[in-house]
């Protein structure tokens, strides 16, 4: 066997790939599930916190800033490990899936709260004053006048941050979530052949290249007009 054939046989072994393809496809499904859950819950809770912060209740805001800082300073993997290995000691035993979801959603919540809040504060003061003087209430002003303008500004930073955090779903493999990387790693140790890793890598590219390209488009489309 030439060295090229040996290389192909090692990294692109058709037999091994065919055998583990269903596992990888299942992993892709789990990754998508996890990613969608993280994005929806993370961004929704971040937006909710930013709106709550606009109400201007001092002690509540200090607490919020502190929690956001903590979640921004800790590596996501540390938060996952903390939830997965820490909570069982107080008789709450979240699965790996739930731990990863909770940790990544919390991190996304923190980052998106910061981004939404920056957007809200960037809307000129005059918009508030004009809107209030037409008789709209504080809540109406916030929701119908300020927020729509703020959201437009937040789209580029929010997109890149969301993509970065969604890629963190691979961290789930550390706490036994059967997403792409977890499935690929166990297939490698079962078959003693790295071909499943190649499949896993391809699966990530299939999922994330469109997202990154779309993100690039969104960033230019909604770029700052100065």
């Amino acid at each position, binding site marked *: 066997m030439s060295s090229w054939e040996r290389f192909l046989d*090692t*990294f692109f072994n058709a037999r091994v790939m065919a055998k583990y393809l269903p596992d990888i496809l299942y992993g892709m499904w789990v990754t998508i599930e996890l990613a969608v859950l993280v994005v929806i819950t993370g961004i929704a809770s971040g937006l909710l916190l930013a709106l709550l912060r606009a109400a201007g209740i001092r002690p509540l805001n200090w607490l919020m800033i502190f929690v956001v800082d903590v979640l921004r300073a*800790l590596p996501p993997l540390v938060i996952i490990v903390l939830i997965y290995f820490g909570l069982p*000691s107080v008789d709450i035993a979240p699965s790996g899936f739930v731990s990863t979801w909770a940790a990544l959603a919390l991190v996304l919540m923190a980052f998106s709260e910061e981004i939404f809040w920056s957007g809200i*504060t960037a809307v000129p003061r005059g918009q508030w004053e004009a809107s209030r003087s037409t008789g709209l209430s504080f809540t109406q002003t916030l929701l119908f006048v300020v927020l729509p303008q703020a959201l437009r500004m937040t789209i580029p930073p929010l997109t890149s941050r969301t993509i970065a955090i969604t*890629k963190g779903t*691979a961290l789930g493999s550390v706490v036994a979530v059967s997403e*792409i990387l977890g499935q690929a790693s166990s297939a490698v140790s079962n078959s003693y052949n*790295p071909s499943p890793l190649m499949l896993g890598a391809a699966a990530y590219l299939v999922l994330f*290249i469109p997202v990154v390209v779309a993100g690039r488009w969104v960033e230019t489309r909604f770029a700052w007009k100065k």
Partner: protein
Amino acid sequence: MLDTFFNIEIMKAAWPILLAGLGNTLLLSATVVPLGLLGGLILALLARLRSPWVRWPLMAWVDFFRAFPPLVLLIFLYAGLPFIGLELGGFGCVAIAFFLNTGAYYGEILRAGIDSVPSGQSEAARSTGLSATQTMAWVILPQAVRNVLPDLMSNTLEVVKLTALGSVVAMPELLFQARQAQSLTYNPTPIVVAALIYFALLWPLVRLLSRLENRALRTG
């Protein structure tokens, strides 16, 4: 509750282990941040060449590594390379993975920085007799770095946090040491302490960034 998560006895016992981990985390960060910056600088300088033969492959390269989760890249190197007879060990794999992954991010930031320097600067510098290399090093880059400093700092924060991935390939950094201590003592206190150490280490940077970001958005 206190006994479970803040057990003083266990804290005392685990402290030296965690301290060694902290040392390794700092050492690892001091290695991978310059490596990533170097990778980014190479990419940003290559992006200066306007030829489509350079530009398209470069964009594909950057998008590729932005789409690839860093942990997947790391496992790929760690589990895949031994099959072609390359045993790089945890540290070697972490170094390569960070060079490729964070290099792509630093590259995008530095490219934006270089683009933000008006072309008159480069023309003026060249006409005083500076060479192209001197112009880049002494005139363009200092201004470029200043223009994107918040982004560079924010990415550096992410890179330091990312060193926790080293634990997956048995690098004895902070998270790895904490998990060792936790499995020896059957108590989550070491992980809680490790989290506190990460927080103490990175909080100043988070605060600073938060202020810089808010100011940038307000002044537009």
